[in-house]
């Protein structure tokens, strides 16, 4: 598979189809990989593919530094590919401006990342080239996909509050969660707006609650659950639980799954007359 990837990458660079390949390379330790940016055909051997390729490289589509390298081909797993669907729908990129090197994937991370446990995109749903043997994508039932939430949803109100307060208290407001997120692409994040300052920038419990809730809310109907926020959090806050909760609500209420269908209307930019209103008096 690596060979096929390198060969394709070389071909794309030689034919000037793309200017740069965003891919995975060897990292500091054997258990780590790191993003690499290959601009010369002779460097394609730096590309690797293994179970440690957890990053969602599409985040580099929002970074001016990498965008300056020219038209990219991006190595994406099925989960990462969903990001590109959202980016197109949210006018951040045009389909023709990115070459998608889809890789089939049986799961990454050691131990296996939670996102992989209920994966239904082993083969990306959007790609220009597919690297690796096509894997039949499974249909996973709703409950199973959100099973991770069960133990938290059944907590009492106080237990929930205490659990999250403890988690949010650890937040140091480094914003790694939003920096890594390929869909947190605002030039000026709401937390950086200080006239008025809706979200207190301090890493105290109040500021941390409003930040973490708002971050999650701003990804409602958008997050594709790549879990990068959670992976990078230096304070080990299970941020993805919040995102997943919102994904669940979005699917339950609006029958919408982000990144699955390029023709769907964005869940939070549309409505249906018969949307749920059980809770409205």
């Amino acid at each position: 598979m690596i060979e096929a990837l390198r060969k394709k990458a070389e071909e794309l660079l030689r034919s000037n189809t793309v200017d740069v390949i965003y891919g995975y390379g060897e990292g500091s330790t054997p258990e780590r990989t790191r993003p690499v940016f290959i601009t010369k055909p002779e460097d394609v051997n730096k590309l690797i593919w293994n179970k440690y390729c957890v990053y969602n490289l599409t985040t580099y589509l929002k970074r001016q530094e990498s965008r300056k390298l020219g038209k990219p081909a991006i190595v994406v797993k099925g989960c990462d590919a969903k990001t590109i669907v959202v980016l197109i729908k949210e006018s951040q990129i045009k389909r023709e401006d990115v070459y998608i090197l889809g890789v089939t994937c049986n799961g990454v991370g050691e131990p296996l990342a939670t996102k992989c446990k209920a994966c239904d995109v082993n083969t990306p749903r959007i790609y220009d080239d597919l690297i690796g043997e096509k894997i039949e994508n499974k249909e996973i039932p709703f409950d199973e996909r959100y099973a991770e939430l069960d133990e938290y949803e059944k907590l009492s109100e106080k237990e929930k509050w205490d659990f999250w307060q403890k988690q949010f208290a650890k937040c140091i407001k480094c914003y790694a969660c939003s920096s890594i997120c390929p869909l947190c692409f605002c030039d000026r994040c709401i937390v950086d707006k200080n006239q008025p300052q809706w979200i207190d920038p301090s890493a105290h419990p109040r500021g941390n609650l409003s930040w973490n809730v708002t971050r999650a809310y701003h990804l409602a109907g958008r997050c594709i659950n790549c879990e990068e926020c959670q992976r990078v959090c230096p304070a080990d806050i299970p941020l993805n639980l919040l995102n997943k909760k919102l994904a669940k609500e979005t699917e339950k209420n609006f029958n919408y799954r982000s990144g699955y269908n390029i023709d769907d209307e964005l869940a939070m930019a549309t409505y249906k007359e018969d949307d749920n209103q059980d809770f409205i008096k």
Partner: protein
Amino acid sequence: MGKKIGVFVCHCGTNISATVDVEKVAEETKKNNPGVSYTTTYKYMCSDPGQKLLRDKIKEEGLTGVVIAACSPKMHEHTFRNAAIKSGLNPYHVEISNIREQCSWVHPDKPVGTEKSTDLVRMMTEKVRKDKSLKPIKVHVTKRALIIGGGIAGIQAALDIADGGHEVIMVEREASIGGHMAQLSETFPTLDCSQCIMTPKMVEAAQHDNITMHTWSEIESITGYLGNFDVKIRKKARSVDLDLCTGCSSCWQVCPCKKIKSEFDMGLANRTAIYIPFPQAIPSKPVIDRENCILFKDARKKNIKPNDSKVCRKCIDACPIAPVKAIDYNQEDEIIDVKVGAIIVATGFRELEDGLYGEYGGGKYEDVITGMQFERLASASGPTDGKIKRPSDGKEPEIVVFIQCVGSRDPSKGCSYCSKTCCMYTAKHTMLYKHKVHHGHAFVFYIDIRCAGKGYEEFSQRAIEEEGATYLRGRVSRVYKKGDKLIVLGADTLTGSVVEIEADMVVLASAMKAQDDAEQFAQKLSIQYDKDKFFSEMHPKLKPVESSSAGIFLAGTCQGPKDIPETVAQAGAAASKVLALLSSDELEREPVVARVDRQLPPVFSTCIGCFYCQKVCPYSAIESEDIKARDGSVIKTVARVNEGLCQGCGLCAATCRSKSIELDGFNDEQIYAEINAVEFN
């Protein structure tokens, strides 16, 4: 730098002061609220002396912000803002604190009311500190209206506007104006001949100095906004020069293609390939039906210019116009640009396709016809010269079954709504039939008879009582053919019996549906439409003729089923809205509009161009703007609000994740200040 705020607490007689200690509110406000430099109380702030007090104090005290603690802003916000203008203060620095409807009248306990009033006033003084001067938005108005659709709605509106002294451009996609009304025989509830009342209006419109008519034309695109629409009209190639042609009829008399179903006669008669849709057509000049004309067919097959085809040139040869013939086979579509200030959409309806009711033999049996087909049969200018003859064999039908609610009120066929006109026209049909076939018998299957309208109930009663139509309450389950009869199987739910009628002809009161292309058309205009693809009015009660886009109005059945008087009334209403709009050179709009952040380079805007705002905006007021470098390259694409279209709801602002859009008058800082001043902790 800081604002000097004056707070005026109104007693409202005793309406407020009975349960709110107004003096204390003023005192606390003066003592505690930052920026407040003057407070007073007054018996009746809205009275002339009260307003004078406000005006005087603004000047004397040099106030730059005002809070009136009084009744609901719905009552006197306007009054006090106008008073401020007279003292040279921008009215948007004046806010109302509602301490009457929402405090003194509902909280009898004085200390409680006083405390709440003090809070409410504090919230408003904080908001006022963040208020900014806003200038009314002035929009230039092009004094010309566009009317899309040349049916009765369009014609009525065009005449009203034209009579009001403004130019009207009318666009009709068919070869003649007239629409459905021109097809009708007689009209309920008076049974006057439709043509007799319609044709004069058509002529009047055609001859009106202020009306420019484009038939055989369609809207290519509409851009712009209230007062300033840019319209592209596609004048489809007619193949006949309207200036040269005299409508002498020589051409269509010689046309060899005579077997084309006439759309005007609902397929009950034929027409030629070069034709006028009906004798009273306006313009009464022909058009070549390029689909069916053998010359054009030949040219398409050979891939040559039409004029190079020699298959048939009978019409051009017959054309007496010289030296240049009025017929031009090579004529092409032409796009013309017009600027208008307002638009009336009057694109009408279509009748439900008859094939949809297979169980009634619709589209299968010739003698199962639709309501519109019956109109043509009954029309003196129709294919049978007004004699009721059934299509299959021309026999006079002795028993006719009319089935109501065909399509209407039938969600399984995709229309859950009532088509509103069918009860009346079916009653009319039974009368016309009885007038023409005295010995005939009419049966009507109905669900409910809905005849709400002046003279309507009497009319339908007349059909039953005087004309002897048999009304059966129930639905027809099936119509099938037996010999030359149509067997109608139905239920009479009032007697609980099954009814079987041997009919000679069946007339389906088919539903009124939105035009097939209504959805695409609405998108072209950026107006909203409902689940049935009828165009949506801005407000179902209070703005029934306004579309969701400012400056675009609705008339007639494109908005929903309605009959002629209602259509004419709505057209008149739309016309009066347009006239009001065109009466001034500039429109002034309340400046409560959204604004997308703009900054100096290199930031330009904090907007990142995700265009969620554009997707949620009910008014299509969000445009995209390319911010370009000097070399023309695009630096970033961001949102921009079209002030002409924005109605100030703030949806975009709440949708924007980075808060790069704010609503003037309710901007982020103002709302924040209000919430901040709640000050519970």
